[in-house]
């Protein structure tokens, strides 16, 4: 068995595709992802924040203080117009004559004096994902209305020292009982589990294809079968190699994530993230690894069985493609809002692993449930390994 294992490993390490999928991809995937997402976000945000919006204001004489504040805002540029109806303004925005129109009612000053509520209209194209413009208006309007409120209340003879309490009698302060780690675990845990499990699968896929269907196609399998070694030893040697590559992929990914996460935290001054990550103990990491071990074994046994059955490399890849979707579904279930780890979900393959990893990251894992997940996943892995060994004894499979 070990002779087969070491030989398969040697061959894989000399294969460029394996090096790319097992080592290079996991090392580069996170920095590349962080880099691309960060770059796109930074560029888009910066562009949106620096953008100057052309505006028109209808009946500005009704609210001169607000019109003045808008005039001096760095993100706005006034455009003169004689248009006043809603349809005319919409048509002009669609023709890109200006970007936004603020319509103040013609009787605003009178209604204000009579202490009556008025509705203003903001007309603009809301298709942009980053709606900074509305935020600018909202902020300015908040300041303006607060000034109006203070003015009106003063006119009504209210003591100026009580104004703040009258305007906002209740201030709600949020006290979060969740630790920083819990928050990060909740938001990142499922995604990390998703990435880890899928990387285990992708790390196992190519070696499995190569060691089953690949051997058939190259004609080396027959030579191996006539050596004085039991077929169980051969298939276990191959299984261990696939398992090793799957775990290596996951391990390299975790290390890469840790290293790049650390670098990014340092540069971005994300001290809370760093503190939260630092609170994850070595025991938590070992528990995560111990859950990934039988998961990777399931993939290794399943993929090897498929590969052994296939006549060619291409046929094996065709059989394996739907498997990726079958793996994604239970992982997506784990990411659904409200999904919690309990005795039922602990018995759903892959969903249980994803939920367990999330709980471990949050620091709220129930060790009894973890033991149940480990036992059920190991039992499934053992059954699949037994099937793979049985499969490898079948002539109709080996010599199709």
């Amino acid at each position: 068995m070990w002779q087969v294992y070491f030989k398969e490993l040697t061959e894989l390490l000399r294969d460029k595709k394996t090096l790319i999928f097992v080592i290079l991809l996991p090392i580069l995937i996170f920095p590349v992802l962080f880099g691309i997402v960060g770059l796109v976000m930074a560029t888009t945000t910066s562009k949106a924040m620096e953008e100057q919006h052309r505006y028109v204001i209808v009946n500005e004489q009704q609210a001169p203080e607000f019109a003045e504040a808008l005039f001096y805002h760095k993100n706005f540029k006034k455009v003169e117009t004689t248009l006043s109806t809603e349809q005319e303004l919409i048509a002009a925005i669609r023709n890109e004559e200006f970007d936004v129109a603020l319509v103040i009612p013609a009787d605003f000053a009178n209604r204000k004096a009579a202490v009556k509520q008025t509705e203003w209209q903001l007309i603009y194209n809301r298709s942009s994902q980053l709606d900074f413009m509305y935020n600018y208006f909202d902020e300015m309007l908040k300041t303006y209305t607060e000034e109006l409120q203070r003015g009106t209340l003063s006119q009504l003879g209210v003591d100026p020292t009580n104004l703040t309490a009258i305007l906002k009698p209740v201030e709600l302060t949020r006290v979060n009982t969740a630790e920083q780690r819990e928050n990060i675990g909740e938001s990142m845990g499922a995604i990390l589990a998703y990435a880890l499990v899928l990387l285990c699968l992708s790390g196992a896929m190519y070696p499995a294809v190569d060691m089953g269907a690949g051997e058939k196609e190259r004609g080396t399998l027959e030579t191996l079968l006539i050596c004085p070694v039991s077929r169980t030893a051969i298939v276990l040697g191959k299984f261990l190699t696939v398992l090793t590559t799957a775990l290596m992929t996951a391990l390299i990914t975790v290390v890469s994530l840790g290293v790049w996460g650390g670098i990014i935290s340092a540069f971005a001054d994300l001290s809370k993230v760093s503190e939260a990550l630092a609170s994850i103990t070595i025991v938590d990491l070992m528990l995560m690894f111990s859950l990934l071990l039988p998961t990777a074994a399931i993939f290794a046994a399943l993929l090897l069985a498929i590969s052994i059955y296939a006549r060619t490399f291409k046929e094996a890849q065709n059989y394996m493609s739907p498997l990726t979707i079958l793996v994604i579904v239970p992982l997506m279930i784990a990411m659904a809002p409200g999904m919690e780890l309990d005795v039922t979900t602990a018995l759903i393959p892959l969903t249980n692993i994803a939920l367990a990893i999330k709980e471990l990251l949050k620091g709220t894992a129930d060790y009894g449930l973890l033991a149940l997940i480990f036992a059920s996943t190991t039992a499934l892995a053992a059954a699949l390994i037994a099937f793979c060994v049985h499969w490898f004894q079948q002539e109709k499979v080996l010599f199709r």
Partner: protein
Amino acid sequence: MIEIKGLAKAFAISKGNKLSDTEKQDVRYSEKAFHSVRDVSFQCGSGEVLGLLGPNGAGKTTTLRMLSTALKQDSGSVFINGIDVLQKPIQARKEIGFLSADTGLYGKLTAFENIAYFARLHGMKEAAIKTRIDELFTLLDMHNFANRRVDTMSTGMKQKTAIARAVVHSPKVVILDEPTTGLDIMTVQTVLDFIKSLKTQGTPVIFSTHHLDEVGALCDRVVVIDKGLSSFSGSLEQFKQLTPDGDLRQAFLAVIANQPEQGAA
């Protein structure tokens, strides 16, 4: 000593597969199975070289696969030096050196690594492996490409490596499936010389081939397989006597022409 008696092997035909008109005419096809080997018997003693002849698809490779324990026969028996391959396949494999029609080498390993890997699978110790490989490299003139990766080798180099791999454990019997196909003249000569050396050592050798000149030069015995039956089994002299002028090609064609369409030979 290799003894084969009444060997037969059938492969199931998938339910969806419909037989072509040609296949319907072939006695080896039934609705459910393809009877690749129906009844093959022969013997090969110490120091004998047995040439296994037959048209393409006659059942030669399936017969050799059963001999090498890669496939299990449905009926009949195979004994390698008295060991029943069905009862004790692992023990039988220790006795056999098998070269398949494909070279069966790992492209990303060197010649040395390929041979050493199979030597280890045969339970050889590291020191013995080095000595034996060095001996084979000299015998097959392989020292100049010992550390070259197989996927960069010529066909001849690969075949020499495959032969060395097949005999690294000093097998008691050697089975070669078309060992000279696609090789240049020089490499063919090396392979033939190697078979002669095995014969000199008293090792029984079975080799399948389409080259009748090789049969004439090397073989003591000839077996012709056609449509899964051993149509001829005898000495080279007996094979030659099938035609008046002793021409091997004519003898082969005569055996094939006399093959009965139905039933066992």
